[in-house]
């Protein structure tokens, strides 16, 4: 394998030299190193940007810039009347990449799709443990092992998934990076050569860019896939220059060493906007930060108490202090970029006086409570400690004493799940698949109590609505159910919804055709450089 790599590298070097004048190279200053190149094995966005959105495609794809799905490798699909069978018709003539390390002899077919899912599903599959401790974390996290009854090859170009129960988000789930379709032919060859690990180091798929080389922790190189089914890309080469520090990324962008960067420092954004060489895209991220009361414990089992506390929190102040304005106060548990977001809901107004009165009327006095603050910066909450301090002083104004507690991150996640833990836990969520079920059912459903449901909140009315929406396949019907669920949520107030952070993407002004993804992906299909 080493020899092949060297050859590949030498070839590319030659093309860079000879064709440098006309080649269009797009440089992305990425924020970290990918963990590997098999999207099925990982859960980090950084890895998906490098592995999934470049090299691979999925059966369905997210329409650029939205959370809606569109046909990808599946040209069309049918759902049986009972909602348990999904039959995907594959797009004909889809070519795999021809690279220095592998030359495919056939187009995409049903075997590739079945292979891609079964290796994650079946414990006795030869590829299930091809790297030690492969956990297929996302596949399991999205509940696929309990959902998929079987995957059948109807004919060469048709695949049928049988599910054990109705699951409307299934279509969005198969558009997620972990469901990327890998080449069975390539995998077979690696298996025959005893080089299975290579699948995680030299990926080969049907996507817009083909993998050239990865220099550990430094640079990833891709080339446009000549026979891409969606049309050859306008840029010839795509380069990820790994730059972990946000200030340094900004300097590189300014110096023209890269064309686009993720995750700027909030403090730099104003300066970026003023720079004539740059342009800045902004959008609410698919996330929410919240403070979850333990609704099973005194006095937080009373709606009035939770409401009163919510009214005492000055969210604007948090957004200003923690995000320098790069966030919006949240009123719903789902972000505004997600379909079914209930615009009509009115947030509890910030009103310490009224809150204090409400607390008195509820018969609560001399309340002292714990507020948990995460020890790490998360996309939805850059500085939990600071936010907790603001909440502490807000609560003090209505006579509630707050003790801020924190633990090491893994410990924090673990302890905060406990049903009998005290106080209010600050946490948040970044969406996986753009489906409201992924927030409302995952975080607030009854079966998530003791797990993701940190408020330990099981409300029958709410739970019925989200379960009904999960089983319904009609989008309009689902939208209505989720809108109602948000009303119940607001009325019952198991959380104080804090903020949705903005995702800010600065780029050189010559960059065209980049779509900011509400899912937080950085995908470069369709980008161009226009002088």
């Amino acid at each position, binding site marked *: 394998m080493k020899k092949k*790599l*060297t050859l590949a*590298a*030498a070839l*590319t*070097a030659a093309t*860079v*030299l000879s064709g440098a004048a006309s080649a269009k*190279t797009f*440089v992305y200053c990425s924020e*970290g*190193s990918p963990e*590997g190149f098999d999207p099925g*094995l990982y*859960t980090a966005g950084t890895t998906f940007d490098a592995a999934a959105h470049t090299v691979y495609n999925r059966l369905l794809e997210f329409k650029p810039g939205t959370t809606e799905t569109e046909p990808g490798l599946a040209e069309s699909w049918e759902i049986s009347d009972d909602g348990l069978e999904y039959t995907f018709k594959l797009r004909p003539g889809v070519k795999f990449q021809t690279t220095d390390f592998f030359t495919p002899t056939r187009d995409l077919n049903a075997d590739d799709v079945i292979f891609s899912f079964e290796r994650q599903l079946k414990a006795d599959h030869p590829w299930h*443990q091809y*790297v*030690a*401790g492969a*956990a297929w*974390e996302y596949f*399991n*996290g999205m509940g696929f092992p309990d959902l998929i009854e079987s995957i059948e090859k109807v004919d060469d170009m048709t695949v049928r998934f049988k599910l054990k129960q109705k699951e409307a988000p299934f279509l969005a789930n198969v558009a997620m990076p972990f469901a990327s379709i890998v080449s069975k032919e390539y995998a077979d060859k690696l298996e025959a050569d005893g080089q299975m*690990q290579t699948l995680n*180091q030299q990926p080969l798929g049907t996507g817009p860019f083909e993998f050239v*080389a990865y*220099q*550990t*922790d*430094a*640079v990833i190189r891709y080339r446009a896939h000549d026979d891409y089914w969606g049309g050859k890309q306008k840029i010839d080469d795509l*380069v990820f*220059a*790994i*730059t*972990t*520090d946000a*200030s*340094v990324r900004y*300097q*590189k962008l*300014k*110096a023209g*060493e890269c064309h686009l960067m993720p995750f700027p420092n909030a403090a730099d954004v104003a300066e970026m906007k003023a720079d004539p060489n740059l342009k800045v895209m902004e959008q609410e991220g698919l996330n929410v930060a919240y403070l979850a009361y333990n609704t099973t414990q005194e006095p937080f089992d009373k709606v009035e108490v939770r409401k009163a506390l919510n009214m005492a929190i000055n969210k604007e102040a948090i957004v200003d202090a923690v995000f320098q304005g790069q966030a919006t106060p949240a009123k719903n548990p789902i972000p505004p970029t997600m379909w079914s977001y209930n615009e009509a809901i009115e947030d509890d107004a910030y009103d310490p006086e009224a809150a204090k009165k409400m607390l008195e009327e509820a018969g609560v006095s001399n309340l002292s409570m714990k507020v948990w603050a995460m020890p790490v910066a*998360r996309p939805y909450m850059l500085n939990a400690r600071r936010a907790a301090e603001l909440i502490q002083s807000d609560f003090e104004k209505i006579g509630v004493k707050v003790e801020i507690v924190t*633990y*090491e*991150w*893994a*410990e924090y*996640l*673990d302890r905060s*799940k406990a049903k009998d833990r005290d106080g209010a836990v600050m*946490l*948040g*969520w*970044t969406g996986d698949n753009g489906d409201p079920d992924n927030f409302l059912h995952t975080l607030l459903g009854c079966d*998530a109590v003791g*797990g*993701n449901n940190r408020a330990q909140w099981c409300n029958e009315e709410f739970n019925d609505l989200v379960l009904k929406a999960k089983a319904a396949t009609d989008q309009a019907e689902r939208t209505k159910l989720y809108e109602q669920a948000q009303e119940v949520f607001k009325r019952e107030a198991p959380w104080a919804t804090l903020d949705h952070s903005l995702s800010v993407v600065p780029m050189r002004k010559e960059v065209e055709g980049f779509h900011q993804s509400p899912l937080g992906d950085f995908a470069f299909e369709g980008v161009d450089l226009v002088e």
Partner: protein
Amino acid sequence: MAVSLGINLQPPEIEPAMLRFILGRLAVLIPTFIGVSIIAFAFIRILPGDPVMLMSGERVMAPERYEQISRQLGYDRPLPVQYFDYLTDVLSGDFGNSIVTRRPVLDDFLTLFPATLELSLCAMFLAILIGIPAGVFAAIKRGSAFDQTIMGTALVGYSMPIFWWGLLLIILFSGTLGWTPVSGRISLLYFFPPVTGFMLIDSLLSGQAGAFKSALSHLILPSIVLGTIPLAVIARQTRSAMLEVLSEDYVRTARAKGLSPFRVIGIHALRNALIPVITTIGLQVGVMLAGAILTETIFSWPGIGKWMVDSVFKRDYPVIQSGLLIIAGVIMLVNLAVDLLYGLINPRIRH
């Protein structure tokens, strides 16, 4: 025997005393190595935070899956068993696989270490090249404004927070003036397979025009940043060692017999003053590896410092414990080399 001043440049015949000295030093390495392996192994496990739990983040992992993964990774076994297996593996040359990238730890180390070594050597070169002359001149002009300035600057350099210093230089030289590239090891235009892992050498071997110059320009700022603290330490150490030597009788004798000031200071005094300076330089290797963590992070330098930090955040046990062990091994070997060199220079040590 004539008064032998300075270093004996004859190839050393290994005399029994020297041999005993070398063997003695080597024997000390073995318990040190085992000690380090225990500390590295225990240290990360004492730290709160569980690698399996961190894999799922906010997403809650079912207890059965948690147990299954822990079992696959072998973390459900008693700690002494884990340690003993680990030590056995290491002694047979297997440093384990990263639980994040799944690649062998040794492979990643060998890929990344040349980058750190190249940067450290350049930084050290810079520190010695400037530090020793600065220290010598400060000693000669003791108490003068020149001395005060040099020592003041050295103190500032020694106290400089690396991260801030690096950013400052980037903003000035790369941002405002545009003289140096911001980060990385070489311009993205150049792409060739690594042969030695040292970019300066590989760029020459590649035969691509301008590649060497590009690699060199990428080294300037990180070398300055990483070299600042050792430079300050070396300058101060040279100065005080020089001051001590300059008051020795033999220096007065040398002056009295009419040798030029250059010979007195440059040959007779400096050679002896260098003995403690070499020790200091050896000790700075450890300091450098610590500094490399920050320098590499800020300059996106793909070396072992950045690699270790990332693994700590991910609680990547195999990488942390083996990485620490390998790095400690390197430092131990450097110190051994310094000890031997020292023994060579100063016969009193080995007797």
